[in-house]
């Protein structure tokens, strides 16, 4: 069902009448060549795999709650979920933007390589696990083991962080505005630099959050796990 609104071409899907497979085949095969600028998805009702594998610079609006893996592997697209999401939103995101207006369950933005994920409310545990270059901004708090083994990219938490934050971190950087229940192995709090403030300010602006960057703490890797230390005698 195609319509024109304010000069842009919009296509609507209704997941009460159409399947996620039909939707995703349209998004993969037709959207990249038909010039449609926006796709709206009604009645998502927590279905899994919505808009996985996007590879076109279009807007995708999900008008409700989505299930697992929504906007996984996103490339170029600007995806907005007007509700909450299940596990692994924007997993392996490559580029573009994914915005969740509600809450996110576990593993949000896991192992992404680029792009920006914004979660307006809280994210659950393992947020940004193994991220490899993507940015994540969470308006609320994150659960335990967030940014576990994160290799590159930035995780910004405007609320509190659960236990084991940044366990076994590589080169990703974490900024936390609220309380941290506990840092994971090899994660440490470091002084912020001018560069940190500029980087944070840019991310907060893109995410649409208005906080003073002075309120954030920086957490990064102490790099003590980078090399095997025989003297520890397995005592890690």
């Amino acid at each position, binding site marked *: 069902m195609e319509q024109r609104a304010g000069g842009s071409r919009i296509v609507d899907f209704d997941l009460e009448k159409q399947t996620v497979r039909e939707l995703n085949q349209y998004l993969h095969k037709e959207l990249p060549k038909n010039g449609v600028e926006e796709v709206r998805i009604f009645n998502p009702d927590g279905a*899994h795999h919505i808009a996985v594998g996007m590879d076109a610079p279009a807007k995708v609006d999900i008008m409700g709650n989505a*299930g697992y893996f929504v906007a996984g592997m996103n490339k170029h697209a600007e995806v907005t979920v007007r509700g909450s999401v299940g596990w692994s939103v924007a997993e392996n995101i490559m580029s573009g933007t994914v915005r969740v207006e509600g809450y996110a369950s576990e593993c949000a933005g896991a192992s992404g390589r680029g792009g920006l994920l914004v979660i307006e409310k809280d994210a659950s545990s393992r947020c940004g696990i193994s991220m490899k270059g993507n940015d994540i901004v969470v308006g609320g708090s994150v659960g*335990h083991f967030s940014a576990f083994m994160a290799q590159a990219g930035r995780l910004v938490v405007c609320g509190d962080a659960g236990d084991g934050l940044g366990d076994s971190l590589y080169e990703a950087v974490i900024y936390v505005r609220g309380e941290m229940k506990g840092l994971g192995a090899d994660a440490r709090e470091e002084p912020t630099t001018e560069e940190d403030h500029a980087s944070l300010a840019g991310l907060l602006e893109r995410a649409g959050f208005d906080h003073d960057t002075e309120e954030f703490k920086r957490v990064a890797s102490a790099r003590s796990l980078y090399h095997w230390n025989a003297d520890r005698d397995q005592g890690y």
Partner: protein
Amino acid sequence: MCGIVGLLMKDPGKHHLLGEYATKMLEGMATRGCDSAGLAAYTGEAEGDGARKISVFDPDGNLDWNELAEGMRKHIGRDVDVSAKGNHAVVVPRGAADEAFRWMVENRPEAHVLSVGRSIEVYKDAGHPFDIAERYGFAELSGSHVVAHTRMATESAVTWAHAHPFTVGEDFCLVHNGSLSNPHSLRRMLERHGMRFDTDNDTEAAARFLEWRLREGDTMEEAIRAGFRELDGFYTFLIGTGEQLALVRDPFACKPAVAAETDEYVAIASEFRSLAHLPGVSDADVFEPMPEEIYVWNKEPAVLAS
């Protein structure tokens, strides 16, 4: 993956909607690769001093339920009600329940007891949850709360006996998404306390452990806390008793859970899609239960002691 479903109707005026809502939720959990399903419903107390509801399953479907009730009636000298749905029946001796139970176990060994209690009814079977819900008329059930499950077996056989919920003692049931790594040592410990097991299922060990703690005088919170020390593995548990619905996730919260609360109900499931079609869910307080937090909802709102 297993799917869990819990529902408690906070408004007693809405008890007639329990089965309808729970069936919607169970169907929402039917896409996790399930091989069996089951449901425990707390459908109001059996009438009569010392009356009990006994949920019975005859896998072969050869039992004559009226004949069974008649035999039990003659033996205990009390009225016995029976309501049958296919090869499941709820048999209600209106007194002398222990005697009725013993008579049935000795004289009708093909009748497998799924639950005993004042208000619990249990149905479980292998097969697709849609078919099981239809076969046993889940949508028509009326009561205060439900604990239900769709199973994808990972550690023991696919049979009706291995399907959840597991019940122990009276009015206690448990469903589980996850797996335990020490069910055998738990089992040996509980057997030393005189407990007998029906299956080799890991969830049965958890159910018997928690019910044993409750019977020893623990509150629900204390029993679950003892579980944090003794149960090793991954779990989201939903626990039902005659008065309460309880939820707990292991310290790593590896298994999913989402809850929605309105003035009308508290609904819990493994995924939101199970809650998506409940009336009023768009205005509900929807949250993900925290790891190692104990959530307990009472059938009747708690009255503060003065």
